[in-house]
């Protein structure tokens, strides 16, 4: 490819407009609600996209109390170097998938520009797509009534892989992704992990310089996810540039050479995982395990002096317990106040430890909330 940057994103913005409900829907809503004034069917593009779009309001509808447009991606700018794994990390609805969809030319940006392998995503969409292998989230992206090999045969033609080399390329990919034995079985009989591997094999058919992987390990069991992460690392070692979206902190930490943390459509931090964690090295993470879901004390914990962020998750130890993580500038000073508050609320502390900050803590420190919120 010869370019220093595989992807260049400059002030990229994407706004979704809520579609006004049609007259029939308005009439139906009016009759059903009996109000007649604040009807909002919410069907169409905006409603569909809003889950991804995030809550940035860009105006208010005249007679409805919800915004008429949503900023899904809000003027983001960054470059992705050739040959690196770049993680786009953020909660659901942060704007990750919208960014990927703009880069693979399924969506046009509202403003700003981006170049993939040197090609402009708006002016040269066909060349952009020829430089990309894209794996979008959702396992129903293959033809389930075709076999694995038939799927690859079909997409090889669409990716313009020369017929003379397509057969060998497909054999190589099936071998690489350990699908040779199942190549003649219908995809409907594949496991989720096998389908995901086949999707990545499809993206590699034309051996593109840049790969876009949207939540590649979502829905996979731990072993399959680990195998897939190995695959992604190998792809980087072979010289591919990988842009990967995920909402799994550990995955982003483990895989990415650099990470952009995205929230509400904005990039709020961008660096290597190590550097991001070093930024908050002076912070401590206090983890308290309690025996029930905390009821309304998280806000109070957040308002304690020196506390930078709080999150609460159900413990993954198989017991019905909950872990509160408190990110603080001084664990010694926070500890007393924290325990006093928990006791006052009648919470029973089962376990307590002070931990090194993780990437999750970086996110909490930057946004004041958990990635799961």
């Amino acid at each position, binding site marked *: 490819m010869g370019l220093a940057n595989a992807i260049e994103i400059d002030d990229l913005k994407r706004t*979704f407009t809520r579609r006004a409900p049609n007259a029939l829907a308005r009439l139906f809503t009016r009759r059903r609600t009996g109000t007649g004034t604040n009807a909002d069917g919410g069907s169409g*593009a905006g409603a569909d996209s809003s889950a991804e779009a995030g809550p940035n309001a860009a105006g208010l509808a005249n007679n409805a109390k919800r915004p008429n447009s949503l900023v899904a991606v809000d003027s983001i700018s960054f470059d992705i170097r050739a040959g690196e794994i770049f993680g786009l990390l953020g909660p659901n609805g942060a704007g990750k998938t919208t960014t990927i969809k703009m880069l693979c030319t399924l969506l046009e940006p509202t403003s700003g520009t981006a170049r993939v392998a040197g090609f402009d995503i708006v002016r040269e969409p066909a060349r952009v797509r020829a430089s990309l292998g894209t794996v979008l989230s959702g396992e129903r992206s293959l033809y389930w009534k075709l076999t694995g090999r038939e799927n690859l045969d079909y997409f090889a033609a*669409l990716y313009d892989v020369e017929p003379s080399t397509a057969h060998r390329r497909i054999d190589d990919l099936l071998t690489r992704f350990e699908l040779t034995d199942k190549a003649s079985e219908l995809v409907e009989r594949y496991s989720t992990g096998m389908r995901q591997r086949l999707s990545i094999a499809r993206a590699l058919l034309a051996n593109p310089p840049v790969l876009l992987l949207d939540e590649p390990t979502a829905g996979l069991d731990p072993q399959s996810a680990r195998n897939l992460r190995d695959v992604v690392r190998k792809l980087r070692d072979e010289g591919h540039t990988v842009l990967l979206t995920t909402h799994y902190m550990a995955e982003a930490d483990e895989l990415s050479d650099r990470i952009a943390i995205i929230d509400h459509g904005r990039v709020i931090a961008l660096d290597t995982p190590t550097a991001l964690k070093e930024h908050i090295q002076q912070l401590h993470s206090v983890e308290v395990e309690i025996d029930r879901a905390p009821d309304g004390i998280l806000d109070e914990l957040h308002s304690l002096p020196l506390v930078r962020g709080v999150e609460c998750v159900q413990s993954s130890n198989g017991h019905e317990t909950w872990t509160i993580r408190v990110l603080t500038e001084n664990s010694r000073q926070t500890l007393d106040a924290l325990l006093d508050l928990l006791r006052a609320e009648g919470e029973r502390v089962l376990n307590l430890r002070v931990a090194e900050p993780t990437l999750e803590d970086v996110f909490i420190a930057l946004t004041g909330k958990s990635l799961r919120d």
Partner: protein
Amino acid sequence: MVDRFRTWLRRQFRVIGAISRKDFLIFLRYPANAVMSVVEPIMWLVPTYFMGLGFSVNGEAVGFAGFTGTSDYFSFAMLGMFMSSYISAAFWGMGFSVQEDMTLGVLEPNWVTPASRVSLILGRSVIMLLLTTINSIVVLAMGAVLFRVNLTGNVLAAVITVLPMLIALTGLGLGIAGVVLSVRRAGTAIDISNWAVTQLSGATFPVSVLPRPLLAVALALPTTYGFDAVRSILLGTKTMLPLKAEIGIMLASMVGMCAAGYAVFKAFERRCRRQGLLGTH
């Protein structure tokens, strides 16, 4: 320049070929559907056959002959059904294929490839037209045996005459695919439009019996002339206009509908990329 065009053309044919193969494989994996697609038209034709008999005197539909020049109502209707299956192929095969891909979740994986999006839609028409042809021939053959349908004209001339109409319908299908991209839940609209175009083209009756406003609509449809011309060649019916004029209208509409279908598809495809409608359903 010529070489680049040739390369581009070869690429489009390869894409269209791959789509046809894929669609055919999937078609074969639903064998019950393949059987039903032959049985169903016969099922619909049976009442028409008995209705035709009911209105006949000594086996001849005398009143009907006054309008069309033939007293063989059932052959007239069966040929109409045969032709109308191509209208269905355009509406459902191409137009609805977009909605089907959206529902299956395969629209986006297709559209992130470098293949031309127009070729991706056109590819869906090839196997549909081929299957429609095979299916219709089987139905006609069964009709000949079961209901004594008698086509006496030049079949090759009829096929050549109807080709511009088929190409025009492909253009229409492309336009419909564009609309479906935007409308998404378009099943009912497609069903109604398909029915209206089929009926107003005179699938089961001569359009000359229509009241004037509806006749005006019927005469604006190129398919009306296609039905009329083919019946004239195969059954010896009277044409509304001289045959050459009807062929001329079909050729003109072929160019017009292909251009319009392309423009409509591109406009809606752009609109969907701007509004973020692709892949949602």
